[in-house]
C-alpha cells in the first residue's frame, strides 16, 4: 500500500512548495529601526528555508535515482488496507473531536473522541467501551475537581 518512495516524493514536493511559500512570506518581514545591527529579521528564516529545501532536493533525488533514501526502498506506508483505514480513521476522529470542542465544548468532544478512537481501532467488545467511558469520566473529574481546570 503506497511505497515509501512515492509517499516521500509527494512529501518532498509539498515541503518544497511550502518552503517557497514561507520564503515569500519571510521576504516581507521588516526589521524595526532599533533592531539588530547586522542581520535583518528575515535572515534566519530565509537561510533555514533554503537549507530545508536543499536537503529536501537531495533526499528526493536519492528516491528518484536510487529508489530509496536510507534503505527504505522495499518498505510501504501501510502494510494493508485495514492498517491504513485504522490510522486514517483515528486521525479523522481526533480532528473532528477538536472541531466539536470548538463548537460544543470539552465534554462533547471527549465523549466523542475516546469511543471514536476505540472504534477506529476495531474495538467491538462493549466492556472495552465501558472501561473507556469510566476512564474518560475519571480524567474529567481529576482535571475539573483535582486540578481546578475550567473546561470551555
Amino acid at each position, binding site marked *: 500500500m503506497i511505497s515509501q518512495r512515492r*509517499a*516521500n516524493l509527494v*512529501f518532498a514536493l509539498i*515541503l518544497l512548495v511550502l518552503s517557497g511559500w*514561507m520564503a515569500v*512570506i519571510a521576504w516581507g*518581514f*521588516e*526589521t*524595526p529601526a*532599533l*533592531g*539588530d545591527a*547586522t*542581520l535583518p*529579521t528575515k535572515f*534566519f*528564516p530565509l537561510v*533555514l*528555508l533554503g*537549507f*530545508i529545501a536543499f*536537503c*529536501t532536493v*537531495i533526499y528526493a533525488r*536519492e528516491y528518484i535515482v536510487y529508489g530509496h*533514501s*536510507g*534503505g*527504505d526502498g522495499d*518498505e510501504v*506506508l501501510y502494510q494493508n488496507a485495514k*492498517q491504513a483505514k*485504522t*490510522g486514517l480513521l*483515528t486521525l479523522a476522529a*481526533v*480532528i473532528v473531536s477538536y472541531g466539536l*470542542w*470548538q463548537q460544543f465544548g470539552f465534554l462533547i468532544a*471527549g465523549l466523542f*473522541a*475516546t469511543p471514536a*478512537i*476505540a472504534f477506529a*481501532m*476495531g*474495538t467491538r467488545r462493549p466492556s*472495552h467501551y465501558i*472501561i473507556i467511558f469510566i*476512564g*474518560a469520566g475519571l*480524567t*474529567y473529574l481529576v*482535571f475539573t475537581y483535582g*486540578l481546578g*481546570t*475550567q*473546561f*470551555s
Partner: protein
Amino acid sequence: MFDAAAFDLATQLLFQPITLVMLVVGVIIGIVIGVLPGLGPPVALSLALPFTFDMPFVPSIVLLLSIYSASIYGGSISAIVAKIPGTGAAVATAQDGNAMFRAGRGGEALGLSLTGSVIGGLFSAFMLAVFAPLLAKLAAQFGPREYLAVCVFGLAVVVRVAGASLWKGLAMAGLGLWLTTWGIDPLSGGERYTFGTYQFYSGIKLIPFLIGIFAVSEVFIGAERALTKIEFDASSLKITIPGVKRLKELKGAIMRSSLVGTIIGIIPGEGAAVAAYYAYAEEKRRSDTPEEFGKGAPIGVLAPETANNATVGGALLPTMTLGVPGTPAAAILLGAFAINNLTPGPRLFEERGEIMYAIYIGLFLINIVMMVIGYFAIRFAAQIIRVPQNIVLPLVFLLSVAGIYSTFSSLFAVGIMIAAGVFGYIIRKLGFSVAPLVIGFVLGVIFEDGFRQSITTSQGSILEFFNTPIGLSIYGLLFLTLFGAPIWRRITSMMRRGAS
C-alpha cells in the same frame, strides 16, 4: 564548590511529604507506562507534565525524573515476559530476557534487569553530581560563539544517529530550527509568521509541540499496530535479586555498561536505545561465549538494562548545565523548568543551588525506591501488558488534550498540539526520525541568538566563530565524534597492511 546551605535546603525540600509522595507515584506511573508497549519515556513525561503546572519545582521535577527513570526500567518487564519491548530502550533486552523467561529463569532475568537498572541509574546520578558543577563552571565562560558551537554539536550528532537517511535527518533538524523563528523576533522585535493572530506572538509553545509530537502521534501509530492477545506464564513472575557473589562476577559488565550509558546519554540523540545496543554489542564482543547471546545469556539482559538507565544522569548533564537536552525525554524536562520560569545553565547553579542538589539526591532516592517498588510490584506490573491498546490509546489522547488545556487554558494550544501530532504521525510514517526535529526545536532559539550575536560581535566574519578555545574544542570534538571512528579504522587497517 560544595554549598552546605543549598544542600541542607535541598534535603528539606526533598523530604517534604508532597515530594516523597510524588517520588513514589512517579516510580509507579513510570513502571506502568514503561510496561505498556509503545509508550516510552517521552510519552510518559508528556502526559505527566501538565500535572506539574501548579506544583512547586522540586516535587514536580522529582515526579518527572521518577517517571523518566522508571519508564525506562518498565520497558524491560514486557520485553522479558512477553518479548514485546515496552520502550525502544528495551529492544536489546527482549531476545535474551525472553529466552531466559521461557527457559524457567524469568526470576533471574527480571532480577538482573532491575538490579542493572538501579545500579546504572545510581552510577549516572553520581557522575552527574560530580561533573555537573564542573561543566557549569566551564559553561559560565560561554558566550554566543560557544553556545552556537554547542548547538551545532548537538544537532550534528542527533542527525548522525537518528534514522538511516542523513538528508532526511538534516531536513527535520532545519524544520525544527525554522519553527522556532515564528513569533516576535527576540533581538529586533520584528514580527515573523504571526499570521495576523496574537496567539503566535510568543511563537509555537514548546510543551504543546512536544506532547503532540510524542504522545498524539503515538496514538495514531499505536492505533495501526494490531496487537494480538498477550499470554505468558504468570507463575514465573518471581523476581530473584542477584547476590553479592553474583554481582562481583558481573562487576566488569556493570561498570562498562554504566559508563557507556552515561557517556551516550550526554551525547544528544536517542540515548537509551543506542546505549542499550552499544552495551549489549560490547559485552557480546568481550564474551568468551558470544554464541550464547540471543539464547538467554544473563549479561544480554544486564548490560542493556544497566546502560539504558545510566543515560538518565548522562542526559541531564548537558540539559542542566547548558540547556541542551541529551535525549528527547530530557527535552521535555526542559518544559518543567520553563513552567517554573527557570532557565537551565550556569546561573541556575549559582542562584538556585538547592534545585541542583535536589536533583542529584532525588535521582539517588528514585533508584532506591525503584528497587523496592520494582521488587514487590513485578506481578502486578507484568499484568499491565495485558491491557489492550484500544483502551489505553483513547485515554492517552484524552489525557493529552485535557493536560494541555489545563496548562494553557487555551484551545489554540490544544490545536497546536493536535497539529504537531498529525505532523509527527506523517513524518514517522514516512521514515523520518523525530529526534532531529525535536532537538532542533529545543535548540532553535539558542542557535539563532548565538549565530546573530556572534556575527554582530565578529563584525560579519564567520572565521571569528572559531576564534575561541572552548568553541574550537567543541568543533574538534564534533569532528572526532563524526569522523573519529572511520579515521581510526582506516589508520589501523593501513597499519595492519603495512605490518603484513
